[in-house]
């Protein structure tokens, strides 16, 4: 007897997870000893005028209902950061594009390159390149972002001075559009390389591993026997089957990746959500931390949900199974 259908099951799992996250964010502060404002204010370095303090106290001590909280969430009414003296939605919406730019490009590059490299290496089974590739990538898989990020920073920003050590653009500089793009790229290089170094090995190893299995299948032999060009056999017939494990792995490792991205942004002071979170933790700005945690969780859930729909498109067998 099947109580839950598969597809509805996964979708409702995501919706439930989102509700749990929102509810935790809503209810946990109530468990703080004393009231919320004293709890965060007493242990931070920020000084407020009596007027500001009264305002904040009035805002946080009103216990709103959960439905109201949900409503505020959707209308971007997330409260006020007392450390930055700015609405939280402003801070987050300014930081978010940088994070999406950095993490998005890193994923795209490492997925495409990892996929192609994995397919090509698996095709040339037992070669010299395979040994080197698998060996070095397994080692790279063991290097955490903190390690590679700090080393790249020391070598390329500090010792060689090729790239800027922090920020996303040069402040107060007036540039033409071309110079601005160049400046942006120079700032992006080091954090992006760190993330690619972290994401690429896994993609490569997984693609290669799955591809080696797929190449043993009979339909690959058939395709070759038909006399199709090898590049068509490799990518259209064989490699397509590797996309599904890749997507699955992406979903499973997303928490890992987010952690790494937070750290990388902090190392290079890249003005995304990670650095904002780091600053908020340093100043114990609890509403801001809550906002960032909640928004990032919802984005992660959304990505996972999208991935779930992608499965059906990648592999039609999945769609028919429902």
């Amino acid at each position, binding site marked *: 007897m099947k109580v839950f259908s598969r597809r509805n099951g996964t979708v409702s799992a995501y919706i439930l997870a989102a509700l749990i996250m929102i509810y*935790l964010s809503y209810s946990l502060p109530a468990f703080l000893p004393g009231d919320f404002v004293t709890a965060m204010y007493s242990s931070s370095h920020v000084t407020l005028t009596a007027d500001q303090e009264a305002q904040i106290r009035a805002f946080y001590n009103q216990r709103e209902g959960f439905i109201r909280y949900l409503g505020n969430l959707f209308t971007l009414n997330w409260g006020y950061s007392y450390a930055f003296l700015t609405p939280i939605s402003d801070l987050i919406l300014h930081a978010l594009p940088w994070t999406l730019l950095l993490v998005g490009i890193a994923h795209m590059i490492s997925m495409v390159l990892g996929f192609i490299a994995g397919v090509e290496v698996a095709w040339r089974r037992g070669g010299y390149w395979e040994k080197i590739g698998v060996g070095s990538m397994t080692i790279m898989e063991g290097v955490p972002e903190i390690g590679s990020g700090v080393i790249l920073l020391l070598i390329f920003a500090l010792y060689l001075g090729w790239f800027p050590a922090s920020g996303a653009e040069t402040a107060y500089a007036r540039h033409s559009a071309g110079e601005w793009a160049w400046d942006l790229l120079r700032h992006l290089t080091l954090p992006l390389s760190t993330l690619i170094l972290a994401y690429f090995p896994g993609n490569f190893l997984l693609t290669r591993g799955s591809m080696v299995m797929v190449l043993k299948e009979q339909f690959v032999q058939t395709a070759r026997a038909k006399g199709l060009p090898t590049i068509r056999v490799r990518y259209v017939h064989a490699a397509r089957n590797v996309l599904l494990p890749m997507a699955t792995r992406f979903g499973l490792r997303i928490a890992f990746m987010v952690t790494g991205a937070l750290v990388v942004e902090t190392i290079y002071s890249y003005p995304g959500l990670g650095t904002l979170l780091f600053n908020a933790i340093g100043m114990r700005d609890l509403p801001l931390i809550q906002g960032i945690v909640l928004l990032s969780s919802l984005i992660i859930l959304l990505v996972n949900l999208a991935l779930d729909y992608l499965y059906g498109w990648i592999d039609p067998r999945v769609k028919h199974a429902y």
Partner: protein
Amino acid sequence: MHIDVRRELARDPWFVTGMGLALLLGLLVLLGPMLAPHDPHDMSFRPLSPPSAVHWLGVNDGGMDIFSELLYGIRNTVGFGLLTGIVALFFGVAVGLAAAWFGGLLDQIMMRLGDILLAIPAIMILILTAALFRPSPVMLALILAIMSWPTTAKAIRSQALVVKNRLHIQASRQMGASGCYIIVRHLVPELFPLYLIGFATKARMAMFMEASLAFLGLFDPSRKSLGLMIGYALKYYYLHIWWNWIIPPVFLLTLLIMTVTFLAVSLEKVFDPRLKEAW
């Protein structure tokens, strides 16, 4: 079959390297307090003094001996990883076996619960609780373990379903063995390789997260940790301290994560029959 696997592991270069490094790091962790020349919390030394015979790696900005800090820091990281790994493994095995053996509604509820937990990004829960309540590291390790058992449970469940239908299990059932007896005497030992894989991957993730959370400043600042040391040292990166203050914790942390990764990779390779072909 057992001897075979052992020989195969002994021949795998990743496993041998990983085990060697693990022994080395294990000694460092166990003997840390004895090896440390100073109390890592002693703040009485001259801040930022360079390495010398008394302070092998110099002194940090707070006047603490960096070498001693290092030895205590790695203990905390390893401890966090092992605790999370053990607790997550325990939950994973218990739920996985129960779901596979009893099936039915229990199975479905547990697996749906697992789906929900998998969907919630564990790191976000950790950040939220750490920022709000500043719980002890043990508490955080337990939360992480509770968030991360489902992957192990799912792997164990699917393998247990295969083993459950094998002949010797059916034989012992027909001879009147109870469910508990079969689970304890047959299922638990037969799934042993999965425990090793699950434990290694969970411990790896936990150590990575501990270092990252400490780096972000979410642990008690007086608790020694490799991540926290890197975070502090980076603030002074423009001084000439990178080789005695920044590199040692980075190196040690990388070595640690690498060791666990090698072990996890080689265990997966040797024990997963599908992957064996691929290598």
